[in-house]
Structure formats: C-alpha cells, structure tokens
C-alpha cells in the first residue's frame, strides 16, 4: 500500500512515498513563493527521485522505477509543516511535532527523546511507551536556538553553512556569545570578528550558548537514553558535539537523512489511516 507524507517547511518542502511503511522514494525542493505549486513540484521531485537541496541521497532506495507514480496511486496522503493547510490533495494534516516524533521512530526504532532543530523553531519531545508523544516543548518567544539563528550569524561571518560545524571544532578560545536576539547576535558576532576574534571561536561560542538552551528543553521534557537529533542542525557536528557534552557525554543518534523525519512520519500516519479505512471497508 502506497502512502505519502509531505512536509512544507519555511525553506524546503519534502515529499516521502512509503510502500507498506518501507521507503520507496523521496524528494526535496526549495519552498517557492507559490505554495500550491510547490506541493506539486515536491511530489514530482519524489517520483523523479530528485533532491534539490543538500546534495546526494543518503538513504538507500529500492531499485524500482517510481517515475510513473501519480497522486491518485496513494492510499492516503498526510501533510505537515507550516504549509500543511494548503496542500490541495492531502487527506488530512498532522502537526510536525507528532510527525517528527513518528518519523524519528521510523528512523531509529525505540527512540525515546527527540530534539528537532529546524529552521524556524526548535522542539524537544519525549515519547511514551507506545511511541506516542507524551510531552513536548517548543522554543519560546526568542529564537535564539533555531537553525535560522545559526544561519544568520554564519551568513554575517561569511562562512558556508556546511562548514560551520567543522570550523567551530577548531576553536581554541572561549568567546562568550549572548543568544538573546538574533539581530543583535549578528551585530555582536560581526563586531567580535572585526575586532580580530577567530571565526572558529565565535562559532564555538555560539554553539555553546545555543546548546545550553536546547539541552534545557530536552531536560524539561525528560531525557531518555535513546536520544535522537533531527532537523537541519543535526548536520552541524560542532553543535552536536556541544549538546552531547552538555548531556554528560550521552551519544545522540543522528539519522542519515534527518530532515525528512517529518515527511516520513506523515507518511506513516497516512498508512495508519489507510489501514483503518481498509479494515472498516
């Protein structure tokens, strides 16, 4: 049975097609100005097996052709993410909080704590015994813990996004950074750089500050041994290392394609619904 999950985020839209809960294909595109067009384009990317952002496929895909698949072939489609309400062909919507949790479980079976650090928000979730979300928190009014926050500063420092993590690990000096406001933090980071601080040290200081905040969120919902980090920032090795350090050396599981967790979760919820419908029929 084919089911689809589609996750429309602020920066990228991901579409995942599962066959009885197994990965069949997925695609990623940049979120465009026209959200409805974007949703169709994302489906197209999935069936054509195309990733517009972040390079290569990191999950192994079955060696079958998928380019003939159509929206009508799906038993159920669930949309999630900021744009979940605008997907014209979705059968339902579920928030990214539940979808991320479900997707993380699909990627790392038995996971109990999840930290998702996306572009616009950062969330921590704890799962109950049946895999249901038992507790969650989102970052509050200030954004000093989000992916976008790191991006703004990296942009100011003119460091390519993918190099931030490695660069920050080369830090030799502690430069304190305040995470109160991203606009101010950019100014502060630039001033530090112009005064001659090394970029590596500034970034390390930034990671330190953000890690302190997000670890607090994880602790608030309850930390379990099997712990996963998803979302774009999980690719930032410098940040992950800092988080692990603050969690007393606990190793985080980083799934190979952490950004699609939400879409996978949505497709899994779609599978539940399709099966339920089958049963009822």
């Amino acid at each position, binding site marked *: 049975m084919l089911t689809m999950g589609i996750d429309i985020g602020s920066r990228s839209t991901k579409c995942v097609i599962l066959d009885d809960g197994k990965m069949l294909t997925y695609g990623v595109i940049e979120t465009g100005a026209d959200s409805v067009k974007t949703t169709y384009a994302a489906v197209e990317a999935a069936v054509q097996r195309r990733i517009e952002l972040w390079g290569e496929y990191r999950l192994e895909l079955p060696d079958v052709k998928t380019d003939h698949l159509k929206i009508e072939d799906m038993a159920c489609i669930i949309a999630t993410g900021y744009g979940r309400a605008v997907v014209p062909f979705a059968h339902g919507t579920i928030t990214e*909080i*539940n979808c991320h949790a479900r997707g993380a479980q699909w990627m790392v079976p038995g996971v109990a704590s999840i930290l998702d650090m996306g572009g616009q928000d950062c969330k921590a979730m704890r799962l109950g015994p049946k895999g*249901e979300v038992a507790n969650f928190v989102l970052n509050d009014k200030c954004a000093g813990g989000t992916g976008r926050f790191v991006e703004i500063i990296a942009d100011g420092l003119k460091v390519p996004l993918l190099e931030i993590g490695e660069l920050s690990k080369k830090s030799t000096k502690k430069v304190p950074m305040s995470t109160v406001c991203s606009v101010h933090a950019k100014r502060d980071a630039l001033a530090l750089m112009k005064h001659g601080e090394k970029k590596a040290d500034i970034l390390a200081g930034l990671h330190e500050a953000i890690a302190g905040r997000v670890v607090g969120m994880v602790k608030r919902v309850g930390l379990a041994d099997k712990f996963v980090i998803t979302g774009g920032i999980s690719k930032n090795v410098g940040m992950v290392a800092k988080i692990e350090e603050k969690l007393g050396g606990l190793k985080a599981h980083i799934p190979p394609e952490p950004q699609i967790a939400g879409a996978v979760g949505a497709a899994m919820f779609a599978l539940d619904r399709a099966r339920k419908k089958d049963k009822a029929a």
Partner: protein
Amino acid sequence: MNTPFKTLSEMIGLTSPFPEGEAVKAWKAAGKRVIGHLYLAVPEELIHAGGFLPFRMSGDNEPLPMQLAESYVLFNQCGVTKGVWQQILEKKYDFLDGSVHSNVCDGVRRIYDNCVEFKPTPFMDVLNFPRKANEDAVQVYLVDLELLRDRLSTLRGQRIRDIELKRSIEIYNHTRELMKQFYELRKRDRPPVTGTETLEMMKAAGRMPRETYNDLLEKLLKEIKSSGREVKKGKRLMIVGNDIHNSNWMAAIEELDAVVVTDEMNVGTRYFAGKVDASLPPMEGLARHYILGRPQEAMTFGGNRFEHILKTAKEYKVDGVISENVRYCAPVGNDKPWLRKELEKHGVQLMELDMEYGEKPSGQIQLRTEAFVEMLQS
C-alpha cells in the same frame, strides 16, 4: 457553525467600541461618572455604591503595539499592565473620571505611579491589598476599605451609606449567581457555549452598568437554554494563568477539535466564585469576601490557587490544561513549574505557553495547541 446568540451580540454591541463603548457613552451623557480599576483587589461594589460606573481596565480583541508604553515602563514589564498603560497614553481611557489602583503586583503598582506622574485622572487612589489570607489581613484591609470609602464619598459629595452598599452587594452577588449558572452549562458533555462566547460574556460585565448587564445575562441564559445548541468538539480544555481578553485567541484554539470549558482567570471562574455574605455589615462582608471568600491569585502567599485549579479541572471534566503566562509576569511565571508538577501528580495533561499579552494566535501558538490536542487524542 453555531448560530450566534442574539443577546450576546447585544452585550458586545453595548460594550463596543472598546473601551469607550455605547453603554459608557450613554452613562456619561447622563452626567454620571466612570471610575477605572484593575484586577480584583478593589471591590466594584464600593465604587458602584457611590453611584459611579466601575470600569474594568484591560486590553481587548486586538494586539496592542506596546512601544509607546515601553518608552515609560521599559520592555521588561508585564504585558497586561503595559497594555493598559499604552491605551492610557493613546488617550483611549480619557473618558475615566477617576481610577482606583492597588499594590496587587509590581506592574499594577507602577502603572499607578506612572499615571500620577504623567497622566493623572481627576481622582486617583491606591488601595493596600494584603497578600495573606487570614483574619489580620481582613482587618487591615477593612480599615483601608473604609478610608477608600471616605475618599469616594468626598468625591461624590455625599457619604456612601450602608444601605447603598447593601444594595450594590446584592446586585453583584446576583451577577455571581448568574455567571455560576452560565458556567454550569459548560459542565455538560456537549456544552452549549464556546470559550470564546464565554469570554465575551465575562468581559462585558466590567464594561457596562451592572443592572443592565444582569438583565442581559438572564436573557442570555434563557436564550441558551431554549436553543438546544450543542458544541460538538472532541477535547475539553481549561485555560490557566494570566487574564486573556483577546477572544480571537480563544477562537483560534476552538478552531481545533477542542472546546474551552473552563478557566482560572479574573475574567472567569475567579470572578464569580463565592459570594459576599449579605448578613454581615456590608464593609466587613466585602473585606472578608475579597481576602478569604474567593480563590486567591498567584500573589497571595499560601493561597488556594492550585486547589482551585485542580478542583475546577475535575468539575468540568477537562481533558487538558493550557498553562499560559504573559512574559514578565513574575507571580504566575513562578508558579508554572510547581503547577506542572501538581497537575502531573494528579494525572492532568497540560501544555505550557509563554506569550505576549494580547497577541493574536500566530503560527507558533497554533502549532503548539494543535499538537497538544493531537497528543490528547492519541
């Protein structure tokens, strides 16, 4: 879609535009005076007995730009009081003939200070409100109430008599009774009213002559009972924390598969809980009620806030509690972790929300609430 109640629309009409609504305009046109107050520290009965219209100062359904207020009280000030101050600066409260403040919290106290300094009303007063709920507190509060009565009497030019107080107490007790009946309806498995409608009903009480309000509320109760309306929603929610006056906020929550059935707010259960004992001398009755007779707020040490929340959650069979807190409100903010522990201990699901006062539900809040409702469903 539920058809709106005619009487509720009438209430909203009379209290619009906010704050100087039709009812206030008519009152003023008759040459009568309006006195503003904040929170539940100042007995409305006392102001009413003096022949004044007690007006509850707050924000309403639109988010307020706070920046003008912040040029006085800075950004790190609780939004509920900051919002009132912003409107005072915008001259929205110029219709007030006086205001009675209190020291009930830092924000309220500083709004008084700023009013005195920058925007005094013709009559300004500040009442000492004890933060203990015991007999000594009642006694000291009683003396202060008597002093306030003296000053209000001077303002009126005629002594506020006990008989007038008794009549006011009766009227306000009647409101409490009617509100209780209204809330009773929400205990039904399929409540006939939404939280959004309830909030509009509660807000109107502080914005029009009480006699008119009581008549309307009686009419509204009849209309609801005869409508046979049922709000068909999956989950029953309770709002706990700072006062919310933005009905759009409540409406956004109720767009989900959930209905708000009760709350712990000053524009909610705390307002009508208990009754002023009419058998006591009126001033003593008031002092006892305001200190001991109603659920206490987060500012009162050793108060019964948590007990009230738990009891209410149980009575209204709520599925989940939203524990919200306006930023920079220290008393409510401080209670949050303890409240969470307390509710978890009793197996009550809750979601914590930090927000700006008057904020309309943005992507963030909608997302959280939706996820919370999903969590309650799973």
